[in-house]
């Protein structure tokens, strides 16, 4: 008899997911998960894993069944994420499945839903997010990329920056200004743009670790069909922000942090036996373990709480803040545990498909790159300072 994953008890569910994930993860895919140095792991591995998940109907556990998701409850979604993290499965990118998908479900036309959602799941479309601009970062509402209505088209001019993985993407969802009013609440629209439209140019930005994750995207007289707007014209601000308030299953920073903590402990206990730095780090790791445990209970609690909790949006600021700051602390510890080996620029050591000898000192090879890349984690998606502002205003009513 086939087990119904939506209704079986949680321990059966966990066992089923464990056996599925461990049975389908190749060692290269596991390497990719373990060697990941930011929220984005090796692109090829990530897409390979998405295909496997998709062919088993598990690419989007949190989506409703009618759109090709699993329709699981928040508890199951968290267990799914826990299992994937504990087995070092590559993390899928959030732009399509986590961000655009739910937006389309709430605000998209039937045509948009039926055309675009399946292509997100299959990986045929790979989306990037066009929010930030050179002069509109934390102050996103001041963005200036313009979309002027001309007949059946919008003509888009301007540029976007910090567009993650745009160089791998074929599509971008953008916030663009469609009216002159200064308030973002009634002058911004949410627009879907094909990156192969004439007038679009993607320029990669090389990060401190030598890799490309971020890009700039320039728009010069780019013609976009009017049916590519999501929601009403000038109502895009609401569309963009609604994601936070409606995201079911909540965030789950604890999942990745637990695994990261485990790997660091494993590294320090098996590889650095008796090492003085490892001894000194013991208390620091315990301290973080307590923090990660508290975040675990917090995020589980939020996931279980009702959708109607008006603070959900603001609480996601809380978990984002805690999750990213804890990740940075863990990076600092793993950096100090590497000692002099931190000096070496890691190349093939971080390639999950590399076949060849790996040295003993290649263990925890991701430490340095992870450390520098995650300095960005308290900047992107709303800086740590912006998140504190939100807590002060929305929760403490200051």
């Amino acid at each position, binding site marked *: 008899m086939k087990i119904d994953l939506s209704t079986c008890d949680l321990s059966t569910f966990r066992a089923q997911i464990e056996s599925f994930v461990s049975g389908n993860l190749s060692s290269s895919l596991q390497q990719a998960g373990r060697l990941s140095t930011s929220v984005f792991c090796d692109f090829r591995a990530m897409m390979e894993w998405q295909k496997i998940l998709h062919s088993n109907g598990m690419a989007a556990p949190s989506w409703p069944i009618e759109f090709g998701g699993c329709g699981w409850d928040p508890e199951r979604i968290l267990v799914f994420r826990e299992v994937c993290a504990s087995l070092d499965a590559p993390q899928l990118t959030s732009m399509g499945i986590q961000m655009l998908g739910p937006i389309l479900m709430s605000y998209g036309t039937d045509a948009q839903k039926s055309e675009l959602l399946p292509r997100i799941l299959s990986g045929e479309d790979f989306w990037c997010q066009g929010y930030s601009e050179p002069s509109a970062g934390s102050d996103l509402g001041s963005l200036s990329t313009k979309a002027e209505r001309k007949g059946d088209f919008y003509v888009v001019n301007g540029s976007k920056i910090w567009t993650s993985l745009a160089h791998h993407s074929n599509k971008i969802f953008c916030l663009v200004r469609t009216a002159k009013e200064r308030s973002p609440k009634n002058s911004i629209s949410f627009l879907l743009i094909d990156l192969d439209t004439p007038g679009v140019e993607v320029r990669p930005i090389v990060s401190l670790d030598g890799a490309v994750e971020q890009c700039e995207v320039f728009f010069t007289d780019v013609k976009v069909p009017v049916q590519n707007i999501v929601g009403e014209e000038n109502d895009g601000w609401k569309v963009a922000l609604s994601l936070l308030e409606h995201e079911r299953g909540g965030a789950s920073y604890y999942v990745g942090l637990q695994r990261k903590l485990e790997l660091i402990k494993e590294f320090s206990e098996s590889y650095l036996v008796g090492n003085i730095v490892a001894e000194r780090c013991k208390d620091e790791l315990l301290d973080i373990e307590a923090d990660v*445990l508290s975040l675990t209970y917090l995020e589980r609690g939020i996931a279980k709480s009702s959708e109607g909790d008006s603070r959900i949006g603001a609480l996601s600021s809380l978990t984002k803040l805690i999750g990213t700051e804890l990740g940075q602390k863990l990076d600092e510890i793993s950096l100090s545990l590497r000692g002099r080996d931190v000096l070496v620029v890691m190349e093939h050591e971080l390639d999950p498909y590399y076949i060849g000898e790996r040295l003993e000192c290649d263990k925890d090879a991701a430490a340095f790159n992870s450390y520098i890349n995650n300095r960005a984690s308290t900047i992107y998606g709303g800086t740590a300072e912006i998140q504190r502002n939100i807590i002060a205003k929305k929760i403490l009513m200051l």
Partner: protein
Amino acid sequence: MNSEERDLLFESVNKYLTHSYNYFDFRLDGRASSESVMKMYKETCDLGWSAFLFSEEVGGFGGAAVDIADLFHKFGSHRVVTPYLESQITAGAILSGIGGKGSAVLGELMAGNITLCVLGSSDRYSDSGAIVLDLDNLGDLVCDYGAVPWAPVVDKLLLFASNKGENTLLLVDRQSSFVSVERRIGVDGSLVGRVTINGLRRESCEILAEGSAVSDIVKIASLKTSIALCAEAVGAMESLLRQTVEYTKTRKQFGQPISSFQVLQHMMANMFIAQTTSSEMLKGIASEISTDSDYLAYEREIMLLKHKINKESKLVRHSAVQCHGGIATTDELMIGHYLKRLVVIDNYFGGPHVDMNRINREAA
């Protein structure tokens, strides 16, 4: 107890603490006497607050970790001065763990007729160590226990001893001639005794339990105590945050409420993060513990919880003082009194460094 009865009990707790309790009337470093505190203690036992802390097996009607946590959360937010922790939780947990010979004393304790406290090691930084002795050859045993909360008023003392290498729990009268208790006032408004035992006599001790089970009984008692302490701290942190937010909205400087300054907003956001993560961790762990053996299974989590709360309570209490300015350092405002109690909670069981060491050593 069903949830309706539970709600009723907490309604009574809230009502009592809001209308009949005020820290300034009960703090022993003020005008209050220990008699008034003990009278309140007895009254609240009669209201069922005590039985609520024990399982039905031993004649109570509660006793899950969430029950303990919820009551002590209230104690924390109202800054209640009471020997509940030492008597009902620590000694109570030991007596209910022992069963048999402990039952009669436990019955009296739950009825609020007597109070007890537990004496473990004389080491100021340890909780689980037992005093080493040989009951058949006590000689001139002298033991200086240092500060013991509520020792001057308790009726009985529970001694955790190692008798010829075997863990033993002894019951003695506080008023025995070999027990001397120097009465002092606690920095947190409580009553403290500096306890010395000098010339313990075999015939004056009743052996309540001995053997291998004793160390688990003592460990469970200390874990229960930790849950109660953590909950009290979380309650205090909540009050500190609430009062700080309220104060900064009314206090004006440079022509505007100081709550409009971003530096203070971020300080209070950090207080919120500290308080919320502590509170969620406590709730999460407590909700998974219902039996005594659950406490042992969750030992590591409880120790991490105590560590977490010690760390976060420091941030909350220091920020609360900072946001209030000079007035927080006066005796008039509650802020400083929460602060004092939180320091005491930090140092319960030997303090933060001991907690850390204990997780590394025992619960690895």
